[in-house]
């Protein structure tokens, strides 16, 4: 059965996920999203995967959340605090959420995974490192190229041409 640390992490993760979507201010919402991402990192620690947990903390909480925060700051002030949604859609969305949760939860509870337990030692992170540079090396290189390409694409997309021309003119 679940222990106290698990329950606390579950409450933090799910609570801040709801807060991220429902808080009026987008800035508080993105800080709540940081809570969700940090809670997931805590789950990774519980699952004896410290390498993945630290990667999650570095990539998600460290960079993505800060990136989102800066993007929110670029948006106009009244848009940050404006909630755009209608009531009917909201009730339909809550219904959809409950259907997904109940049906998938029932499937999981009914399946055999309730009985799965393990006494095996956790995977050593040295094995993961070895895997990365032996078996998965083409995927690793491809991932590096993908990251470089996406960052370049993001820079090209976000580039402002009008500012450049203004500066030349003045």
């Amino acid at each position, binding site marked *: 059965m679940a222990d106290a640390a698990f329950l606390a992490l579950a409450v933090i993760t799910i609570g801040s996920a709801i807060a991220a979507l429902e808080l009026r201010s987008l800035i508080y919402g993105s800080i709540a999203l940081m809570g969700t991402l940090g809670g997931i990192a805590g*789950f990774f620690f519980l699952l004896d*995967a410290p*390498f993945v947990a630290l990667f999650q903390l570095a990539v998600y909480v460290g960079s993505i959340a800060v990136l*989102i925060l800066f*993007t929110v700051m670029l948006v*106009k002030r009244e848009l940050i605090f404006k909630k755009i949604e209608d009531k009917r859609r909201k009730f339909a969305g809550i219904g959809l*959420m409950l259907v*997904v949760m109940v049906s998938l939860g029932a499937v999981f509870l009914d399946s055999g995974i309730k009985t799965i337990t393990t006494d095996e030692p956790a995977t050593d992170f040295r094995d993961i490192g070895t895997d990365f540079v032996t078996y998965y090396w083409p995927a690793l290189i491809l991932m590096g190229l993908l990251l470089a390409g996406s960052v370049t694409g993001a820079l090209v*997309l976000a580039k402002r041409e009008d500012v450049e021309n203004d500066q030349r003119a003045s």
Partner: protein
Amino acid sequence: MTSELVDFTLVSVALLGIGIYGLAVKRNFIRMLFAVEIIINAANLNIVAFGRFLPHSGGQTMALFSIAIAAAEVAVGLSLIIVAYRMYQNVDIADFRSLKG
């Protein structure tokens, strides 16, 4: 290690449900990106949990790849938000009319 696999999957299902709710209800582009992030994290949690209980090191490797690719996706998504905001001065997806087919 006292928690079982089913506990982690149930948390993951809850996060997936919240993410789907956010994608269905919110019309703010940035909030929809939050919802996508929550769904990706639910999937990562599931991958690592199953990898721990199988047990197999492939789960953690896959989660690392997934996190890195999600980072790339967020970078592109945020720059799309900035471009769309510059074009329409708004983050309401109902206003992005030229994106409709």
